Structure formats: C-alpha cells, structure tokens
C-alpha cells in the first residue's frame, strides 16, 4: 500500500509517494528528498540535530511521521538563506563561532530561528540558554551559540523596526 502526501518544502510544493507509513519526516527529507542538511543524531527526539520548522513551529523531525504532515509547510536548513545571502542567524553563528564540528549546527540554527519567532527569548541570555537546551552540542560551542542567538535576535528586531518605520 502506498500513501501520497503533499508538502511545501522550503517554499516549493512537493508531492511524495510513501511505501511505508512509518517513514519519519527526517528520513523523508534525508533519504527521499536528498535534503541531508538536517541531521540524525539519535532518531529518538533527544538531541535536536533534526530540528526543522513545520508550520512555523520548531520540531524534532525524527519524531514526526511524514504521513501525518500532509499539507504541512516545512522549512529546513537548506531553505534558510536567500540565494547567497545568509540568514541573520546563520551569519551570527559564523561570527560568534557557534560551532566546532558543525554536526549539531543545522539543528541549532533551526531551533534558534524557531525560538526567535516564538518571541520569548529576546535579549535575556538565561532564556536563550533555556530555549536552546533541546539541542545538544558535544563540542561545547554553547557560549558561541548563545551569543549568536542574542546577536541575531537584535539584528532581526532592528530590521523589523526599519521595515515598519
């Protein structure tokens, strides 16, 4: 039996046939859509490496079944930059060295974008640390990650203000 679902992935509509209802969103992205930027660190919802944004909310894609996301709007690390212009969060991760090996980085960045959209963290480092605590970084780049999120939040708020002014 096969299941067909339609998704919007990084702005482009995409129809997928699934032969197995157990396929996760993560495996769909990595194995069927060749979007390997999203990482699998545990496949159990415990590391955050697979974080993507679905309908505006950050989720662990390894815990989400693809079939139950028919019609969903997905944003992955591959869709974050605009052409060769990095998203402010991506740029801030480079400036603040919010990464070492870089394996957790796509998940951290997606999580940061989600956190900033949620609007609770703002300029409070404690809240940023709390808000980013679903994303493990064994290289210990947490200091850089926290600074990057704070910096990007400020930069994005500034752009928003400029836009609305």
């Amino acid at each position, binding site marked *: 039996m096969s299941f067909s679902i339609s998704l919007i992935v990084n702005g482009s509509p995409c129809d997928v046939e699934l032969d197995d209802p157990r396929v996760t969103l993560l495996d769909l992205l990595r194995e069927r859509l060749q979007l390997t930027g999203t990482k699998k660190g545990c496949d159990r919802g415990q590391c955050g490496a697979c974080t993507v944004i679905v309908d505006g909310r950050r989720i662990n894609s390894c815990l989400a079944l693809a079939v139950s996301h028919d019609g969903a709007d997905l944003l992955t690390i591959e869709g974050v930059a605009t052409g060769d212009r990095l998203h402010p969060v991506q740029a801030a991760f480079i400036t603040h060295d919010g990464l070492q090996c870089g394996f957790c*980085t796509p998940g951290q960045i997606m999580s940061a974008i989600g956190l900033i959209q949620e609007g609770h963290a703002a300029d409070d480092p404690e809240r940023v640390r709390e808000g980013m605590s679903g994303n493990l970084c064994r290289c210990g780049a947490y200091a850089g990650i926290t600074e990057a999120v704070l910096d990007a939040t400020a930069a994005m708020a500034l752009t928003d203000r400029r836009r609305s002014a």
Partner: protein
Amino acid sequence: MNVVTNNKWIGQSTIRPDGVDKVTGRAAFAADTTMPGMIWGKVLRSPHPHARIRGIDTSKAEALPGVKAVVTAKDIVEFPVDKSVMLGIQDMRWMCRNVMAREKALFPGHPVAAVAATSEAIAAKACELIEVDYEVLPWSIEIEDAIKPDAPILHEFNTFEGKPSNIAGKMELKKGDVAEGFARAEVVVERTFTTRAVHQGYIEPHACLIGVGADGKTTIWSSSQGQFMVRAMTSLLTGIPQSDIRAIPAEIGGGFGGKTIVYLEPLATMLAKKSGRPVKMVMTREEVMRATGPTSASTSTVKIGATKDGKIVAAQGTFYLQAGAFPGSPIRGAAGCSFSPYDIPHVLSIGYDVLSNRSKVAAYRAPGAPIGAFAVECVLDELAEALKIDPLALRLKNAAKEGTKASHGPVYPRIGYVETVEAAMNSEHYKAPLGKLQGRGVASGFWFNAGGESSAQVNITEDGNVVVTTGHPDIGGSRAAIANVCAELLGIDYRRVSVIIGDTQTVGFSNLTGGSRVLFASAMVVTQATEQVIATLCKRAAKIWEIDPEAVTWEEGAARPAGANAGKFPPLTLKELADKAPALGGPVGASVQLNTQGAEGGFGTHVCDVEVDVDLGIVRVVRYTAVQDVGRAVHPGYVEGQLQGGVGQGIGWALSEEYIYNKDGKVDNPGFLDYRMPVCSDLPMIDTILVEVPNPKHPQGVKGVGEVPLVPVMAAVANAVHNALGKRFYALPMSPPKVLEALEVAQAAE
C-alpha cells in the same frame, strides 16, 4: 632567501573556511552521501555479555528477498592470538575480533554478523533470521569482579603472574624511592577514588559508504579521525592492499578520540565486495552507546606525603582502568600524566589494564589523564587543607619547571605550568566572593601531546592563490589555523589560502587526528613546504632580474631585491610570478613529509565555582575559568573553543554522565535521555586565560591544546563541591541522588 613576517594572521581569529558550508547544511558528513546502486548494511549484535559462538546459520537470511550479502567472522582476516601485529597503539589481534566476534561474543552489542540488503528494513529483518548458537558464559562488568581470583576469564590465553587472568597488562613508572620519601613526610593523605565509564558522546553516529569495484578497487567514504587509519585497518582486516583503497574523509561530526579506530568499514567493505553494490552503514545511537568507545571506568588509590612547609616529598598512585573486552585501556595516560605537573623527588605510579565484558574502550580526550588527575588533584586539595595552605600556593610551591625531571621520564624544557597557576591565582575569579552554598575548587592537569607523521602539499594556483592539502581530518579548526600559518609566511590575505583535507591516495601518509598533534605537526610540514615555495618564487624573480637568488627577499606577498646592492626592481607579486610560471620552469608547489618531533606536553590550571541545591542534590557550576599554557595560539578563537569544549565534557563526567549496567550485564541507558550530557542551560559561560609560552621546538611555538582542558575538570568540580558542603566525594558522578544521599548521611551523623 629571507622570510620577513610581522604576524598579521598568526594570532588572529580569522573566519573559518568551513563556516558557510556548515551553517547552510551543505557540509557533507559520513551519512550524507549516496552512490548509484547503493544498498544498506546492518549489524547483528550479541545480546549476551559473554558467550561462546558454537555456530552461525545465515541461510534463512540469505534466502530473504532483497538480501544481497551476509558476512561473519569468516570473511574478516584473522590475526592469531599468539602473535601481536600492531598498527599504532592498536593490536590487530583485538581489532579483528572487535569488529566481528570470532570465538566468543564478549559484550552485549558485539557484532556477530552483518547483512546488506536493498533497504534498511530488509537488512534488519534479515538480521533477525540469522541463527546464532551461543553457549552463554558467566561474565563480569565491574573491575572489582573482574580481578577476583574466581572471575570468569575473557581470554583464556591471557595470563598475569603465571595464571589466566583478566589483568591484561601492568605498567610501572618509578622515580627515586617512595619508601624513603614517605619516611620523610610529616603529613600523608591517601584516598581511593572511582570513576564510571563515560562516552565521548559525538553527536554524529559512526557511518560509512563503501564501493568495491570488480577489480577490487575500493572507495571508502567515512567519518573518522584518520583516513589513513581507516585505510590501513580496512586493508589489514579485508586483505585488500592499501594501494587499492581510497579512503575519503567526510566532515567529522565530533570524535574526541572515539573515531580513532574502525567499526563499520571492514564489514561494509566485505559486504560491498560480496554483493557488488556500494554499501552504506549508519549506526543508531544505541549501537554507538553499546558497541563503541567509551572511556574506562576506574579505581585509583593515591597517596601523597609532604613536609609541614608544604614541600611534597613522595607520591604513589595505583590506577586500575577498565579496558572492556580487549586489552588496551589508557593506563599510560593515567599513570604517566597524573604527577607530571609537580616536582616530586620520589614517585611510584602503577597502572593495571583490566578486561571485562564491556565494549572495548576507545581514546577519549587525553586518554587516562583525567582519571588520574581526578584522584591526584583531590588528594592535593586535602593535603592543602591539612597543611593550611592555599591549594594553588601548594601547587606553585611544588610546580615543575624547566629542568625538572618529570615523573614520566623526560626533563622539561621551558614550560608554562607555573604561569598557569600564577594566572589562576591572580585572576579576578579566584578573588571573587562566594555566595551561600557555593564553593570554589581548583585543579591542574597535564597531557603529553604528540608529534608524528604528517604530509602536506602547498600549490600555487595559476591565478596566484594557494591550495594547501593536508592529511588529517579537521576536528578543532585546523584548516583555519593552517591558513593563518601559510598566509603569514607568504604575506598574503588568509582568504587566498584554501586548505583542504586530501584523501589517502592524493596526499602523503598522515597519522591520526589525535594526541593534540594536528596543528603542531601540520604547521611544521606546511611551514617547510611554504618556505620551499617561497624559495622557488625568489629564484624565479632572480631569474627575471638576472641577479643572485640570495639577493632576493620575500616580503608582504612579493619578491623584492634584498637591499640597495641587489639592484632596483619593482616587486614581483605572487600573482605576477604565477602568471609567469609556465615560462620560468613550470608550476610552483612543494610537498613535505615528516615524522615530526618536539611536541611538548601541555599544562592547565582550572578554577571552578559551584552552587549546591541541597534540597534537590543538584550541583550547578556557576563560574569556571580554564587557564592553559597553549604555546602559541595560532587561532585564539579555536583555542578557546577547545578549552570550553573540554571543560563542558569534564563537567558532564563530574556531575551527570555514567554508563549504568543492569543485572543482566547490559547498559541500561544507551541514549541521550538517560545518559545525560550537559545542555546549554547546564553550563556557565566558561572563561579562558591563554598563557603563551612558545614551544622552542616548533617554528610557530605551537603546543597541542585540545586534550589538556578535560584533564583537571572533575577534580576542580569535586574540590568545589567539598568547599561548598564540607563533604568530599570520592566517586563520580556527583549526581543528584548521590549528593542527596551524602547530605542525608552527614545529617544523620550530626
């Protein structure tokens, strides 16, 4: 030829060359590639801690539609147990049995067979169809059980003091005569400590993708701390010559020592060879936790004696380290590093390598040294207390310096240990007041650091830029640091230097990314290669100007006449010389291979503040400063990153991480939920102080920096907890249940 530099790039935290790829998801890690016709491999693992394998029937698995190949130990080259074949520090007798169980399965998770099939699901199903006839044997997990006289023996051929034993080795380091030393001591502290096995915890699971052509030509794409190690081990275990194996290093998603040996590559190679299809294998997190790494659990007894004025006169340590199922625990690091920061006349340090039915341990950041330092640095804290001396003053009084004969053998050249203690003492942190239920602890640590074989090519592109090819996976920012070194020597912008990691068939042999050796060794080879390139460029300019090559100097990216006598010529830039290269003798480049010598050990001193929640038993690290003699910080940002990363791992080891075994001899917490590594909110911002005492034996003064920062951490945390609660912990981790238990015991005693 003269080279003039003004250190424009060395010492700068330049923008990392791999940054954009890593923030956009383009960086290709081991599991991120495919090959046409690719199929999936899966490992069948032993459920038993200890069992003789009487037979394996793979026929049902082979008959399952979609299954393309099955391999067992029969397909892996056997190294007989009575003859050691070493590859670096690994013995192939154990490696061949670790990648695939042969006579016996020795830990839960030990591979017994592997399958390749058209999907992961079919491969997993096929594994279930393999019938293994096990004779289940008694087992032991803990050191205390494994060394009992009647303990079940893992390897019957292994004897210790004439009898079959689980003690696989002993090493002893001796300086002076400890009996004589202790006779002079006025204060002696002796304590026993235990630590639990902890995993390196890299977020990227082991993975590989391997294709084998009909002619045997093999391509390996995998993530490791050494593509040459992957090639050599795979060659030895499959019989394919090294010249036919091209091992391509993927980006590595963390290793910390744990990716210095192979697990999957030989199996995937044999599956690919048998099936004629490229095979991809990716471990699950549970497989990573059960069958790879971790580092040893340990039991250590340390005794230190001093005179009343605080001079240490004798020290003795006995370190029992778990090796897991095969010999090779890091006793050298534990016994050899623990007393090295100090000038002690009489030292006896003994390490025992203990087998048990756990996965074979792998290197973990300064292997063994953090275990030894935990014991020694906690005893020093008690000694300081007994002597009523500030703990850093005690260390300063006994600090090793230039000329000190280290307990592990060498006589130190100029080292920076004293400077680290002084910097810690003078830090604002050390003087800051503490709050209620807060405590402060200090500890020092040492790691050998390593040199060894490295190769590099420096090539000038036709458009006048530079490509540097080296042979070690970049795990801590080495590409950026090497670009700084090369750009500095050439006097050009670092962005004109592109550093890439070559595969095994395109660059000369380069040893592992391990032992904190990479920047030390590769900066040395890249320096020599760059100097050769500069010499060639100067010769070319001399030819154009028709003057003596000795009369040409290289400065700020261009050849220039060395002085007024050399003649008056406008400078020739790298770009101009590259343009003229075809007419002047051809491409400009150099290749250098060295067995680098002169790596000097590294020292660190840490200050840690904790706060204890006495109701919940939670210890929080609220402030942390790591001071280290880093030789020369070629890229300070990455040096700081290494220090912060090491401290983070140490805090996990001290407070929350441990392998928990159940009554069936199996790991009960093989995932990130119950094996608790620090998350962002668990750690404070970690401050670093970089002390730079250049290594006199290195062109840029480089010392390894990556491993030292883990060494002092557990002791610094434990000493801080004692300072907060007045209660000492001799066992790690100091997790909430254990802290609560200790507080209750203390309360009951009152």
